[in-house]
């Protein structure tokens, strides 16, 4: 099971994501933003960080990187894609996921252990969770406020495409407490919290991040 992790200028969690893939039983493969080549991987992680400095909008310039053309093509063919934090923003800018991210409503950077509720286990990246399970995943962002128009939010809710919701105080003003969503077929998932930081004893508040990776590995191995 080979999982590609894309590095953009300004990515800073790409090494953690590759380490998480390997710790969870997969084989991580480094992908480079300028290469229009996915190296035959079975799934892709778009990691967090500050791609291209986020000068225009978070994720806006990364979306046009050569590797993203291939990611978008592969995602259309059903390949699992996980976007974490800035990666989530890139997936929104790429129109693989609806909505957009703007600055946190309180205008400050936030970094904390965030409690989440798993709202959908019908995705490639969440199948090993229990429906409604409460988990704790590291959250750290400046531009983490998920926004979309009301019809889009209603559609996401109605189609069961809200994957994760924040528990407790809303950390960034995200509409309807949405922390993560999925596409129509459940293969593309984006979320603001960082599962790759919650995979190893002694590092991070939990091991809840492991099941993101073991879910997709089990799926691909059994496919």
């Amino acid at each position: 099971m080979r999982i590609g992790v894309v590095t953009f200028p300004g990515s800073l969690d790409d090494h953690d994501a590759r380490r998480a893939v390997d710790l969870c039983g997969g084989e991580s493969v480094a992908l480079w933003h300028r290469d229009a080549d996915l190296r035959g991987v079975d799934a892709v992680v778009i990691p967090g960080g500050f791609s291209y400095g986020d000068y225009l909008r978070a994720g806006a310039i990364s979306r046009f990187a050569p590797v993203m053309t291939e990611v978008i093509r592969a995602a259309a063919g059903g390949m699992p894609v996980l976007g974490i934090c800035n990666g989530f923003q890139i997936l929104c800018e790429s129109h693989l996921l609806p909505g957009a991210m703007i600055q946190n409503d309180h205008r400050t950077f936030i970094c904390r252990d965030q409690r989440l509720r798993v709202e959908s286990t019908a995705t490639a990246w969440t199948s090993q969770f229990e429906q409604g399970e409460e988990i704790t995943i590291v959250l750290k962002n400046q531009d983490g406020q998920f926004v979309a128009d009301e019809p889009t939010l209603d559609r996401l809710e109605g189609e069961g495409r809200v994957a994760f919701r924040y528990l407790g105080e809303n950390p960034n003003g995200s509409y309807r407490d949405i922390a993560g969503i999925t596409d129509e077929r459940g293969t593309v998932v984006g979320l603001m919290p960082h599962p790759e930081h919650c995979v190893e004893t002694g590092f991070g508040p939990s091991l809840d991040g492991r099941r993101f990776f073991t879910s997709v590995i089990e799926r691909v191995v059994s496919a």
Partner: protein
Amino acid sequence: MGRIVVDVMLKPEILDPQGQAVRGALPRLGFEDFTDVRQGKRFVLSVDGPVTDDHLAQAREAAQTLLSNPVIEDVVDVHELTHDEPEQAPITGATGSSGGAA
């Protein structure tokens, strides 16, 4: 050298944290009458020679595809920069001999 202005604003229904920060600071300076602040983005695109209709069409397309995100932002204006507007700051690194300090 012609220049084209592209003005982008957050959609009215989207919260503008930057604008709110500015709004909060105004009364501290004695500006009590401004009830709301929305902060936008202005892009100034330069072309060689005069601005043509084709340049404007390309600018509109760039505005919709890269300069704005239609999910959260509106392109409120695309127009040629004319001398009726305030002088723009010199563009750093621009070619030609007209730039530079006085």
